[in-house]
């Protein structure tokens, strides 16, 4: 635990400036989102867009409500991923090989650190979203938010850290990450489009998901923990070879 705290402290010292900037941006966007949503009832741009689209999920209110959370996840998460390449470039991993710590602990700490950043920023994001919905007087789709957060954690953290280690934190890792996210988004879009053209009732599926959100969330959390363990083991193995 002592080592884990020291490793995290090192990253926080290293990223102090970026973290302050990211935190200010997130708070700023959240305040903006809340104010924007608060003005919804008085007839703002969101109202106009909603009238045009007439689609609950595509309102500008939702967009501005979700934005702070998404920004949190992307900015803070990406910043912490960056420490993988920094650690390699400045020889930190070589230094850690002189310490009485295992590579697995280093990988688990890094995973835990990034997971914690995502969770904390996710919480800020959810608070932002809830605030936006509350001030705009709209129904809150909490289940959607939790499921989305679970899937994001699964995709963004646990699958991608080994990727960053594998590519030694180089630009290729970022490219691969965005490529993977792009593919994932494409697959999701394709599924939606196919379901719209086929007999599959998307609305029914969404209703099922919402009705069973608690169970699904628990299952996803369990899957996340399992993937966390596998991810840590794979990362440690890659990291061990990299240092050699």
């Amino acid at each position, binding site marked *: 635990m*002592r*080592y884990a*705290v*020291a490793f995290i*402290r*090192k990253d926080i*010292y*290293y990223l*102090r400036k970026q973290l302050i900037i990211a935190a200010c941006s997130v708070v700023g966007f959240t305040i903006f989102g809340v104010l924007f949503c608060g003005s919804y009832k008085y007839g703002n741009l969101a109202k106009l867009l909603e009238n045009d689209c007439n689609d609950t999920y595509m309102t500008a209110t939702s967009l501005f409500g979700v934005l702070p959370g998404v920004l949190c996840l992307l900015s803070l998460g990406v910043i912490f991923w960056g420490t993988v390449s*920094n*650690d390699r470039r*400045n*020889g*930190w991993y*070589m*230094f850690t*090989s*002189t*310490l*009485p710590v295992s590579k697995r602990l280093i990988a688990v700490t890094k995973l835990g650190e990034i997971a914690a950043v995502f969770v904390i920023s996710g919480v800020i994001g959810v608070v932002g979203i809830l605030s936006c919905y509350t001030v705009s007087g709209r129904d809150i789709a909490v289940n959607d938010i939790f499921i989305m957060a679970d899937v994001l954690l699964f995709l963004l953290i646990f699958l991608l850290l080994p990727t960053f280690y594998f590519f030694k934190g180089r630009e290729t890792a970022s490219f691969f990450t965005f490529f993977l996210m792009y593919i994932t988004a494409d697959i999701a879009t394709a599924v939606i489009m196919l379901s719209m053209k086929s007999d599959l009732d998307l609305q029914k599926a969404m209703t099922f998901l919402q009705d069973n959100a608690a169970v699904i969330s628990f299952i996803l959390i369990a899957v996340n923990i399992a993937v966390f363990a596998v991810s840590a083991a794979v990362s440690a193995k890659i990291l061990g070879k990299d*240092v*050699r």
Partner: protein
Amino acid sequence: MSQENALELRGVTHRFDGFTLDNVSFDVPKGSIMGFVGQNGAGKTTTIRSILNILHNDSGTIKIYGFDSVNDEMKIKEDIAVVFDELPFPDMLTPSSLEKVLKGLYKKWDGTRYYELLDRFSLPRKKKIHDFSRGMKMKLQICAALSHGAKLLIMDEATSGLDPVVRSEMLDIFLEFIGDEEHTVLMSSHITSDIEKIADSVTFIDGGKILLSGYTSDILADHAVLKCSEEDISKIADEDIVSVRLCDFGADVMLRNRTVSEENYDGYVINRTTLDEILLFYVKRNSGKEWR
């Protein structure tokens, strides 16, 4: 293992693609400084990585203060400090913030000692590391390495690229460090003048093989360069010769036993030599038409 040895390598072998660390064996006595000398790519860093168990050896054993480097790795690493040729700390940190990180990594961390060393080297506490010169960075590494109660200090080309003044300051610190009989230094370098100044013993390595290992004073006393004509080389017994360098004015012959040679080859000029020359003659033997 002898309790007098801080470090003991026996038959350490590690095969890479294109390079083999071949049956490396040497001892570093407690309370001494050993120079580990070889040209670039000779296997110095590979040996150090084997000692640190960063590389898993194909065969051989390494004991550090009596503990096995593999089975007792976690136990012994607290007692080892390593100084690399490049600073391995994030360059956005300051010496002060680095101290807060390092104190969490070592059980026996001594913050007072760390700041004393910073002051001694006139290193600023609040300046970011990326604004440091190479000399300052190396000094900072030394400060960190000597502040957690390590008994064995391993230096991997740490003095390369530093000016003589900084090197001299660092060498003084190492001499102080080994003042305590328990403390030991293994110093890898290709700057043999530094080794000659402070090392009690020296080990030469080339192509992954140990060429020579022993007390510095003995090695310097035993070896000598005999100057003769090319025709006279045949008068010198093969077992006395390390290698021969041919030049325009004759030949330089590196002899392996100066005392005996001075008696046997009376009439020839036999000069004392340096570690640099000794390394050169061992590494270059049979390597071209100028060398035999």
